[in-house]
């Protein structure tokens, strides 16, 4: 059985957010929900200042606190290492969100796609309402650009009252396709693969670089690894001074 993992090369990452937007597209994420996101930081003071960007997503921890805490096994591990959620078993207690040290789980506080449920046009008779567009384009389901592939392994659009999070695009992986954030990354900063496969590219990267994972000290054993630095700037060497 493969054990999937992702390596994110921060030097290749350009911080553009294409991964996160594409993720919303692929997984039909409602307003305000981000399966893929980031942690940014501006360090230093002018003119010695730098901006850093670190993409984040569910770490698919081997020892996942969210899975341990979920009372109904709605949050569970797949054999291939993916931390998966089952919408229909979710009681909406949000204990997984309380348990997750990474803040990557979202709750559906309301019915999804509020924007698209609006039935007011801005120019009566001349422009449609969002609801009308969804009705015409996609029989009233979710959004006009709704991706039906998502529904193969999870509710296509999650109802209110349940949590949701990144699934490493299990529906795509199942078909032999890469997670969509990986495919959509213009910088090839995300490398996906099987840790059990010794010849695989991610094994190469994990051997070549001193990879780190988020909050490693917690022992959750995340399966998202980071290598190199967002800003590997060159500088003039000195010994400093007193």
């Amino acid at each position, binding site marked *: 059985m493969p054990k999937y993992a992702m390596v994110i090369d921060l030097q290749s990452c350009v911080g553009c957010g294409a991964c996160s937007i594409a993720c919303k597209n692929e997984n039909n994420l409602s307003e305000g929900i981000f399966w893929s996101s980031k*942690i940014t930081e501006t360090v230093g003071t002018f003119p010695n200042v730098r901006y850093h960007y670190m993409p984040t997503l569910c770490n698919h921890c081997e020892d996942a606190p969210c899975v341990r805490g979920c009372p109904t096994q709605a949050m569970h591990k797949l054999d291939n290492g993916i931390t998966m959620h089952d919408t229909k078993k979710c009681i909406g207690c949000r204990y997984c969100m*309380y348990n997750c040290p990474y803040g990557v789980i979202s709750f559906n506080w309301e019915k999804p796609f509020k924007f698209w449920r609006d039935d007011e046009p801005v120019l009566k008779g001349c422009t449609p309402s969002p609801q009308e567009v969804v009705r015409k384009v996609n029989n009233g389901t979710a959004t006009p650009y709704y991706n039906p592939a998502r529904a193969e392994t999870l509710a296509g659009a999650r109802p209110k009252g349940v949590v949701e999070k990144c699934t490493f695009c299990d529906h795509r992986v199942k078909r032999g396709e890469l997670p969509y954030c990986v495919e959509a990354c213009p910088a090839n900063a995300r490398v996906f693969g099987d840790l059990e496969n010794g010849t695989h590219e991610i094994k190469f990267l994990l051997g070549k670089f001193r990879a780190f994972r988020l909050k490693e000290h917690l022992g959750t054993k995340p399966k998202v690894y980071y290598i190199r630095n967002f800003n590997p700037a060159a500088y003039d060497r000195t010994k400093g001074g007193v």
Partner: protein
Amino acid sequence: MKGRLWIGLLSLGILLGLVTAFRVFSTGFVLYAKTDILVWTMPLAAYIFFSLTSSGLAFVSSIPIVFGIKRYEPLEKRTVFLEIAVLMAGFVCLIMHLGSPLNVIYLLLSPNLASPLWWLAMLYGVYLAVLLASFWRIQTAQVSKTLSTLVFLIAIATSTALGWLLGLPDARPAMNGSFLTVYFPLTAFACGLAAVLLFSLAYARASGNPNPTSAAQADLYDEVAKVFGVVIGVTLVLFIWRAIIGGVSSSEVELGAFRRMMQSLSFQTELWLGLVAPFVLMLIPSVRVTTWGKVLASLLLLVGMFAGRLEFILTAEIMPFGQLGEGVPQFVSYLPTISEVLVALFGLAVMLLLYTLGERYLNLDGTQEKSEAGT
């Protein structure tokens, strides 16, 4: 007249609660503080408050039967009934906290034994059944020591498991780990004592059944008040140690949220109103022996503990971490929404209505003998 107004008021509370429930489950939890940062808010705090108070009442009710201190027997029936009423309030708030309460069936179909939440859910299920049975036995004057012991054991399990639930996650270092497993049962006991005093004295008086009715009973209440004072005192000591450990000698990253919370209204309410004031009241013998002194101290403690439950949850949450911290300040602030307040009031109204009905129809004052005589 007064009674009708009271029932009317409670019915209104329940009606508002039902309307809120309808709105929350039709529109969604947007009616709550609705951010993935403040994921647990007042409805859950209210649930914790009620369920811990219920556990505390169980400790009180087990004194005469489990530990055989017979002079506490007059408190037994009211206390057990209160446990049920308060637990129901807790359930109301819990349901209002769950996004998809209909899916709870999966607790049985797909259990996760590693989850404290699953254990709590199971324990509460058993707890309610045992409590009802236990009350039935009291009502029918066939007090069962086995059932009462079970109630006591489950109460210990639930109040400590709540500490497990909230304190365990590595994600929330500000919760100070295992502290809660001690603090929760202790404060539960304090709440139980407060509830007993409050409902025995104040409620009875308000409903026109002056209490205590005998000198023996008066002595009993004074003794309860003394124990109450001691428990508050111990709690206060623990509380202060928590403040020292978390607020003074910790690193900001680990417990920054707690430091921040120390300045919050809920923390201050918990400390001054909920612990210091009742402790002082119960320390002064001349106040302790008065009914108003006991009632005031009990009320303050319960209000303070309610704030405390909220404070604990917020401590875990106000410092957003990871990607949740993007574009938000280092600490987020929380003000309950109207719906959230209504949920807490819903629970309270359910509890009070149940209790009022109990007082009216079940002769909660009665000892076994009396109830035997009554039937």
